[in-house]
């Protein structure tokens, strides 16, 4: 966890945390952080996500997002068994609602704080990964990216971690997502799940590309789609993400003017994952126009829910 020692007594009129105290400065210097970066601020009793900024009067401050507040001083928060039982109750039953995610975030953080070393060692990156998912659902993308980067340091080859990392980069820092997708997909052994995220990123780029830059981007999307078709582990990507890849292929073909192939891809997508009216509407697209781009945007928004999440027992 990227943690900065902070004093929540030292607040500016705007409610920002002054980070000019020696305890804060030391952490900031050690981690090489600056304005714009996200981090967690903590006085060891409460902890909150914040973005660093410069205040003309106070110097470096943290702009806290109080939706992400975690009480480490809550009664019972120092009892690992109690915290992990409460957490597992939320994680291992019905899929949690969005309203439950802040509490999951809090319990994960409390749990990691008091977990015995052997549990932390046995689950490297697990707390950060699940925190990234909670923060993503809460719409806290900067902090979600921070957590998934932390998880990826511990689990660089875990397909789910890499998938979520690529997906968050796509939402938060698109040029970085394109660069990362190109690097990751450069490996011949990239897992199908990860390749599906790379395709989604590159297809978005192809969609946004100027006319003279479209062809090379489109060629690459179609090439990666063929790789996904032949991937022995493609079932691990799940029906929804395989359908999304066919949708991306169809959209690129549509823009390239290969309408019948595009429709074939759209129909294939709908056959694989006939959920919701959106993909049905996609199957009717004949021209790459504003309407098609709007549908593409809607499908990608819908697909943001299709994040692979397995139960995480702590």
């Amino acid at each position, binding site marked *: 966890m990227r943690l900065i020692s*902070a004093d929540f*007594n030292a607040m500016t009129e705007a409610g920002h945390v002054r980070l000019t105290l020696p305890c804060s400065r030391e952490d900031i210097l050690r981690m090489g952080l600056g304005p714009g970066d996200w981090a967690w601020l903590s006085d060891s009793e*409460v902890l909150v996500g914040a973005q660093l900024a410069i205040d003309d009067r106070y110097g470096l401050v943290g702009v806290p997002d109080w939706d992400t507040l975690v009480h480490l001083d809550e009664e019972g928060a120092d009892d690992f068994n109690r915290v992990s039982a409460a957490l597992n109750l939320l994680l291992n039953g019905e899929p949690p609602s969005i309203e439950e995610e802040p509490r999951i975030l809090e319990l994960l953080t409390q749990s990691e704080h008091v977990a015995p070393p052997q549990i932390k060692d046995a689950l490297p990156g697990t707390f950060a990964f699940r925190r990234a998912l909670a923060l993503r659902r809460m719409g806290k993308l900067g902090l979600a990216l921070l957590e998934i980067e932390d998880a990826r340091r511990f689990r660089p080859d875990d397909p789910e971690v890499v998938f979520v990392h690529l997906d968050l980069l796509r939402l938060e820092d698109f040029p970085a997502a394109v660069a990362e997708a190109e690097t990751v997909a450069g490996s011949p052994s990239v897992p199908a799940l990860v390749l599906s995220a790379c395709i989604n990123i590159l297809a978005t780029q192809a969609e946004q590309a100027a006319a003279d830059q479209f062809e090379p981007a489109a060629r690459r999307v179609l090439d990666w789609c063929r790789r996904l078709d032949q991937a022995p582990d493609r079932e691990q990507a799940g029906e929804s993400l395989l359908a999304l890849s066919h949708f991306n292929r169809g959209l690129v073909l549509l823009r390239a003017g290969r309408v019948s192939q595009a429709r074939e891809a759209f129909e294939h997508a709908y056959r694989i994952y006939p959920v919701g009216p959106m993909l049905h509407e996609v199957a009717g697209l004949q021209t790459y126009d504003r309407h098609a781009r709007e549908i593409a945007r809607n499908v990608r928004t819908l697909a943001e829910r299709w994040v692979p999440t397995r139960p995480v027992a702590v």
Partner: protein
Amino acid sequence: MALIRLVSAADSQGGVLRAGRARLPDDAFVVRCGLPPFRGRPLFTACDDHPDGVYGFSVQCAAALSVEQLVSACRNNTVGATTVARIRDMGFDVVPTSGQWWHATVVVPKGWSQAESERLSLLFEPISNPAARR
């Protein structure tokens, strides 16, 4: 990512120096968010130069406010409370300074020792904060 630059309310009001305000009465309560004796954030490491021109650590303090009112500024479940008089008895001072709510600074000399800071932290009595801000 764009550089984030903020203008504080104090600056937007002409950078008023609040340290020159009326002296806090001896019987005013002083609250510091966190569990005394603040082992998680020792007073010794919580001191800096406040833009109002004093050196020390941050607290909540204002004349005629109850502990309950001052505590409402805190998110911690436990806070420390004392009075201005007790701090002055130890040779330090409390002055209102710019910041959120009833921000004030316990002014200490720059060269103060860790032992002095630990003695000062013992002045703060733990108070539970039933309405910790979420």
